[in-house]
């Protein structure tokens, strides 16, 4: 939007926050609370963008929504890349849990043999898996990031930073 501050830095920071919190094992379960980390990333992006506004200018909901949408795009990309990295390095405790469960089910019939077989044979680097994860993460983050930006814009409201609108001298 013409004349407004750059949305790049606030969106990158908000997106990085979304991506990291949505990828780190155990912490990422917070997203089960209606995408809490993604909403929070959108709110943070809106707040940081508001801070770049000159004094005397008010912050609109559409500004928050736009920066939240861009933050969601970055967040989805970060989450996918970081998530793949964590899985490749074997840092995901859920994978270790599944492996111990697979050992258990070899001794006892649990009715979940098909599920474990598919997990054992899956590869995180399969193109279909990577592409599907990327599309899902980006879509989810953009939708909920926009909502987070709207919520952030609503919370900022008509608050204006102190000072007068700068004019040319």
């Amino acid at each position, binding site marked *: 939007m013409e*004349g407004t501050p750059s949305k790049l830095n606030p969106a990158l920071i908000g997106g990085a926050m979304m991506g990291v919190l949505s990828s780190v094992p155990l912490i990422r379960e917070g997203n*089960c609370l*209606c995408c809490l980390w993604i909403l929070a990333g959108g709110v943070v992006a809106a707040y940081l963008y508001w801070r770049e506004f000159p004094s005397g200018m008010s912050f*609109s*909901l559409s500004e928050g929504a736009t920066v939240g949408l861009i933050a969601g795009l970055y967040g989805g990309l970060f989450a996918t890349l970081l998530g793949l990295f964590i899985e490749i390095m074997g840092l995901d405790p859920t994978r270790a849990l599944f492996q111990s469960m697979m050992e258990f089910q070899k001794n006892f019939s649990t009715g979940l043999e098909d599920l474990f077989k598919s997990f054992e044979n899956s590869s995180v680097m399969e193109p279909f898996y990577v592409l599907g994860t990327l599309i899902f993460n980006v879509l989810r983050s953009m939708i909920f990031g926009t909502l987070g930006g*709207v919520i952030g814009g609503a*919370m900022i409201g008509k608050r204006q930073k102190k000072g007068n*609108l700068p*004019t*040319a001298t």
Partner: protein
Amino acid sequence: MQIQTHSSGNRAGKESLRYKIACLMILFFSMVWCGLILGVPFLSGGSLFMQRGAALIRLFFSPICHQLPDRSFHLAGKALPVCARCAGIYGGFLAGVFILAMTDRLKRVWIPGRWFMVSGLTMTGLEVLLSHLGLFSSTLMTRCLTGALLGSVVSVYVLAAVYQTINYGRNEEVKKWKELRVNSIRH
């Protein structure tokens, strides 16, 4: 409370039409979203293809909801793919968008202040906090109702954001930005 109005005219008419189309698109998307949630229990009892579809939809919602069966509504003997609170949020959002999109408010759009969002968040937050502290026993219905309240509140702001985006060029703030930019180029 801020009410923005715009006068009649060809440009205003086009912007009103764009706003209406945007509202209808959001309404359609919300209906599809809620339809997927409500359809899972019925798909689960169908053919193998439908059961796989139900499993995929459940998998789609798994990263955004805990899906605990004892905290979810049941239809046709099967749990919904989202919990009661999430179902309330999405249902409240759909209801809010439906009411706002269907009423003729194109000339006057309500853009609420911060208090409206805070009230919606507070109700849900209080319900979660009090139930965790054991001071209040939540039921599926209380979770759903507080979620519906929050969802409907958010819908008002979302449509207001859409309106502001479409009417960006007529916004007084944008005129100030343009004046700033012109002045900074001149000097």
